[in-house]
């Protein structure tokens, strides 16, 4: 078992009970009031059928763990209007998605979001957009992700849009 180090920072004003209380209040607001729900598709790297030279898989060859619903704060950037060939072959697609998710929430669900996993976000009743994780926010050493410097409590995950050629979704 790994050694545990007690966190005694700002202990005069703030402790683990306060941390838990603030975290629970925030989670109740985010999960209960906001209720932004997404679906996480974690790639099964062991079972996916990969190429010997490139480690690549076709769309049908990637295997996933069972999808998991989770809640997070979501920000989606403006759609991007681009082209493939110097102004020709127009490409209009959703902007990048940034989500903030409670670490405790992921622990309760027993999942981890990794670089390259896919996240589905229901844009409306009929359309689900899929994004790939480009930064899994695993490192939360900065003050912003901590509660007053006490301890990190959320992760910021950056995602970019994927089309059906990369991930078909459900």
């Amino acid at each position, binding site marked *: 078992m790994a050694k545990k180090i007690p966190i005694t920072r700002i202990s005069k004003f703030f402790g683990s009970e306060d941390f838990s209380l603030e975290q629970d209040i925030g989670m109740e607001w985010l999960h209960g009031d906001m209720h932004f729900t997404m679906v996480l598709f974690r790639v099964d790297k062991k079972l996916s059928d990969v190429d010997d030279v490139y480690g690549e898989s076709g769309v049908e060859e990637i295997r996933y763990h069972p999808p998991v619903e989770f809640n997070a704060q979501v920000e989606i950037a403006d759609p991007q209007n681009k082209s493939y060939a110097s102004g020709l072959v127009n490409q209009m697609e959703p902007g990048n998605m940034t989500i903030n998710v409670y670490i405790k929430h992921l622990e309760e669900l027993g999942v981890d979001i990794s670089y390259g*996993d896919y996240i589905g976000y229901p844009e409306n009743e009929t359309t689900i957009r899929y994004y790939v994780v480009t930064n899994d926010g695993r490192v939360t050493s900065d003050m912003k992700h901590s509660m007053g410097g006490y301890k990190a409590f959320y992760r910021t995950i950056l995602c970019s849009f994927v089309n059906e050629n990369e991930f078909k979704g459900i």
Partner: protein
Amino acid sequence: MALPKKNKKNINITPSQVQGHYPYGYNGIVTPNRREEISDLISEHGTMLPKSVLHADLDRGMLDFVQKDLRTSVSGKKIPVIDRILTLQRWGEFSKTWSFSDKDRNVSLPFVVVVRKPDVQPGSNPALQYTIPDRKQFHYAKVPTWDGNRKGYDVYKIPQPVPVDVIYDVKIVCNRMRELNQFNKIVLQKFTSRQAYTFVKGHYIPMILSSVGDESVVDTEERRYYQQNYQFQLQGFLIDEEEFEVTPAVSRVVTLIGGENRNSKVNDTITTKTTFHFDSLPPGTFGTKTKQYTTKVDLTLMRSSNVDSYDIYINGVWVNDSQNTGIPVMINPNDNVKVEIVKETSLEPAWILFQETVVR
């Protein structure tokens, strides 16, 4: 004027052995042993044709080269090489590096990675440049065939391989100069004679070291590490088995004909009949008749009337009589046949009928 003494007066104009290490030299007819060995490597474990060599095979060849020929160890510990060509697929990266990653899933230093430039350019391999237009097929091998009936051979034809240049950046990322030095020494030793070879499906593919660059991050306020980039140009070629052509060449047919055991000429037998009449011959006396034949026949007695006995003479020589009735007498062209009979006591005219079967 006298010739200078140092002039060669005896010049051997007999060509010497081109490849002296072969017992009889290369005479343009007998294939040198080494060339046969290389040819065997190309077609090993397969058909008589070479196997496809495509982009992925060249990439695999490059990875193998880095793994084996540029293998570097420092203080007894091997510097790990990411054994894949990294691609756009994000999740694939960790699956290739997990064995030497830390708890934040970052790759631990030192390591070596091979990055291929996605663009593959037309090749500069001098053996293959622009020599044959229009993907013309050329003879590669003659392969004997036997399908149970026909013996022959197929001609295997392939087009000229397509030369390609593939650029690889082999990067070493490390924290210590001695790791850099060690890797640098191995690379430069390997490329002392400008080129090295990787082995792809029986083919030796040359590569050259294009450049060595340094991308180290030596910043005052950032994490420091060394990163050097060795750029290699693989002068490969593409062989696509989809372009191969197999055409049947000369075949030899063995035709076995079976038949029934009967004489098919029977139906074509030509027979004639000749009757020798002895009208005025008194009873109990001898009588003779003659006939000259122009064809070869077998003479057989059919019937007779008032004939007690008979004898047959050919050119005056007795050959048969009434004791051997049923045995045919062979008559050759221009034979003079004499039939001699003894008439019975009847007063009726005597005659004897012979069947003549024409012999072909």
